[in-house]
């Protein structure tokens, strides 16, 4: 047995995991062309949605997969990102950079506060506190009567960012793809860095990390803020995709979905969230149609099948779909 099982520095090109990741990335890169040849723009929009969910899940995975912090409130940061587009644009501010700056700044400040409180606890209490803050923010957004309240807010103009016009679906798709690639690369580097070593140690054994002299709280809080900011960036993209921001983006069900994506893909792997997002969203898209074809009367019950699938993955694949792929013939690490 050699090599660090989960986090090697070297990409092993022959390993099934590496091959799977490359295949997925190539397909994602080609998707607009494939959709174009089929003659359906719908799939470009769907692909963008998958990428946005993947991005948010990469953000959550940074603390859930590597830091062992189960946040059931990360949708609030997605919502913040969406409102950071919608609210300024109703006031005529359409610069994408401005939207991004507002989203990052507001999220960083809020996450530092929420994290500082929530990280006083751990385990179940941490889950409940993050959920409580997300609910507060959700109802806060419902109370924004000037900005649509419960009904949400239509984005008048999509973000304009330099040469890129995000109202072009293909452009938005590639912006989302590049953002995902960037987030993957950054989290890969961070996980292997001295910071990442301590963060992973706090997950494995926080008591020992403290006894060695590491200020564990500071590491956890930093990771929490970074993770929230990634989710906010996903929110900025989401508002541009849907031309809409609403409190429902911050619903706890979305927070739960992000956790499911991370676990489906493979907790503690860098690339897992991408695979998890693809699987979950594709199933949510396909299953209703499939069920309707087989038994039209039970169309509404497609979620039973989704639940069964998630149950089976959790039962049979301890490390999720991507995480269970062999990382090489000798069980050495994984790539990204």
């Amino acid at each position, binding site marked *: 047995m050699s090599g660090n099982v989960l986090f090697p520095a070297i990409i092993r090109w022959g390993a099934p995991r590496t091959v799977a990741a490359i295949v997925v990335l190539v397909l994602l890169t080609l998707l607009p062309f494939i959709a174009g040849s089929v003659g359906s723009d719908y799939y470009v929009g769907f692909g963008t949605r998958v990428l946005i969910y993947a991005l948010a899940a990469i953000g959550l995975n940074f603390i859930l997969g590597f830091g062992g912090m189960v946040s059931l409130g990360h949708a609030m940061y997605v919502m913040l990102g969406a409102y950071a587009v919608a609210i300024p644009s109703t006031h005529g501010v359409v610069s994408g950079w401005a939207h991004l700056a507002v989203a990052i700044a507001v999220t960083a400040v809020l996450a530092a506060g929420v994290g500082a409180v929530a990280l006083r606890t751990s385990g179940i209490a941490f889950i409940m506190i993050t959920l409580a803050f997300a609910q507060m923010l959700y109802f806060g957004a419902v109370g924004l009567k000037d900005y649509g309240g419960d009904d949400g807010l239509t984005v008048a103009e999509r973000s304009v960012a330099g040469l890129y016009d995000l109202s072009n679906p293909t452009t938005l798709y590639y912006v989302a793809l590049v953002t995902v690639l960037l987030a993957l690369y950054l989290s890969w580097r961070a996980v292997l860095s001295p910071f990442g070593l301590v963060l992973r140690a706090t997950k494995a054994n926080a008591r020992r990390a*403290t006894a060695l002299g590491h200020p564990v709280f500071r590491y956890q809080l930093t990771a929490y803020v970074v993770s929230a900011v990634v989710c906010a960036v996903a929110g900025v993209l989401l508002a541009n995709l849907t031309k809409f921001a609403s409190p429902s983006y911050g619903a706890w069900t979305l927070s739960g979905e992000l956790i499911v994506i991370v676990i489906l893909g493979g907790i503690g792997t860098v690339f897992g969230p991408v695979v998890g997002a693809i699987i979950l969203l594709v199933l949510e898209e396909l299953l209703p149609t499939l069920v309707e074809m087989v038994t039209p009367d039970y169309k509404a019950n497609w979620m039973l099948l989704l639940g069964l699938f998630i149950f089976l993955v959790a039962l049979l694949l301890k490390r999720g779909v991507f995480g269970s792929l062999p990382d090489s013939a000798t069980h050495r690490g994984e790539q990204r």
Partner: protein
Amino acid sequence: MSALVTQSLVKRFGGVLATDHVSLTVEPGEIHAIIGPNGAGKSTLIGQLAGEIASDEGRVLMFDEDVTEVRTHQRAQRGLARTYQVTQLAKEFTALDNVLLAVNARERHNFRFWRNAHDDATAMAKATTALATVGLGAMHHATVGTMAHGEQRQLEIAMALATEPKLLLLDEPLAGMSQGESAAIVALLQSLRGRYPMLLVEHDMEAVFALADRVSVLVYGRIIATDTPDGVRNNPEVRAAYLGETV
């Protein structure tokens, strides 16, 4: 200047006096052993010294500095290293990464997100040295989960040493070990004698009497005697309270 001084240290759990006005010292270079029957409060005392358990009364001094109110990780940064009775390691990590984590704890500038942790040649060299010191030189890339119990105990000590400590707290380093493994650890601790002052909590009497310069006997949270190994062995009160037929 003593390496460690406790002054009338107290810990209560409800009505129970787990630590009953314990005063002891560890002198530079000394191996000071604490023995006592199960439930005597040894682990509580170690927890108080490490800062994991807050004391109700009394003071703890490290090298003349009052650290009673100093938090766990800050005590560690001041040179206190401990090992655990029940192995506390990152199970999915390799032996090397566990020790590297300990080496990095000594550095104040650990908020580095970019560079690969394994590219830090100085830290890697220190980690390698610590592993070699405890006899795990060939185990760098073994994950902790695959290591034998005895090897994990050795790794515990390697991690403590890797923090470049000024004082070692060893909580039953021989717990659950075979005779051969115990002998190796005793030899290791002998070889470290004089380099670090040590407070050693241990059940294995043979090891204690072989290693310790002084022995304190803890019974119901109270130290009933502190003496040389021979002195303790011949102390009637100790014999009555604890040693009885075992010595």
